[in-house]
């Protein structure tokens, strides 16, 4: 359950940003989470909800953009979506690829009231 630690990092970053911008209440926190990030989104929401009640983020909602895994084949150069974690190029069947997207774990934006 490292999602609790991840939630704590998010809360800390948002609180810092609020102080910098002199904001008092946050409506939405925008995240981008890749399928290969190693983070379970439900656990993250659970972790987040368990730590915010006493903070200025008590009413904030997590808006999560989920990112699928995209690969670029180093053999034939084509781009493709990696489905069901099968990391094989569908065009030439090479397994040598660069991961273009899917590893994200980003704090994208906050929306103040």
């Amino acid at each position, binding site marked *: *359950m*490292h999602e609790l*630690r*991840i939630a704590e*990092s*998010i809360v800390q*970053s948002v609180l810092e*940003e609020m102080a910098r*911008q002199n*904001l008092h209440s946050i*409506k939405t926190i925008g*995240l981008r989470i890749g399928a*290969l*990030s*190693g*983070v*379970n989104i439900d656990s993250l929401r659970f972790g987040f909800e368990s730590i915010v009640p006493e903070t200025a983020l008590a009413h904030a909602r997590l808006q999560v953009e989920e990112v699928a895994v995209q690969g670029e084949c180093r053999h034939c150069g084509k781009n493709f979506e990696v489905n069901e*974690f*099968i*990391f*094989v190029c569908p065009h030439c069947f*090479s*397994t*040598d690829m660069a*991961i273009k997207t899917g590893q994200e*774990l*980003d*704090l*994208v*934006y*906050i*929306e*103040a*009231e």
Partner: protein
Amino acid sequence: MSKKIEIEKKVLSENDRIAAEIRKELKKRRIVSLNLVSSPGSGKTSLLEKTLAALKNEIRMALIAGDVQTENDANRLINAGGEAVRPIVTGGACHLDARMAEKAIASINLEGIELLFIENVGNLVCPSSYDLGEDMKVALISTTEGDDKPLKYPAMFRRASVIVINKIDLLGLSDFDMAKVKKNALQINGGLKIFEISCRTGDGLNEWYNWLRSLTGRQ
């Protein structure tokens, strides 16, 4: 009136920054570093004990043993002849992070060290998100676990460079299918290097030792 503010920041940017510093320092000192990950009980400490016994007079090693509560693993490594061994007790955390690794590494005299092992906390999920500045992640699976481990933990097996399949002395006692586990692992990561070993009988360990020798510029 609501106001949207762009932030665009990696949640683990602080961890990644420290990991990059560790990587730079280890590279400067030409130390090869391996981060060992597995479920609890796959044999990480056993493999390190064997490795120390076989190679301690040949390769200078430092070892960091992460554990949730105890220093038992670090003590096992000291008993196996490890000279530079440090425990990290995470106090409940299910993974090591770069800050913990940095602190442990800073307490080791790195002069002359060629190989650094970091035994992560027994868990195949959480440690996958945390770069410790290592050169490679080595994932262990044992034949007493399910052969679908790679499919259940794709993030980890994708990030690993090596898998070690341990406890092959017990093959046949469960329905663990070696061909299947390899196929599953290679489907996630076609570049994986695979070792099949038994820490109990010593089978396959020579290949592992030879690989460590080649990593540290021998042979």
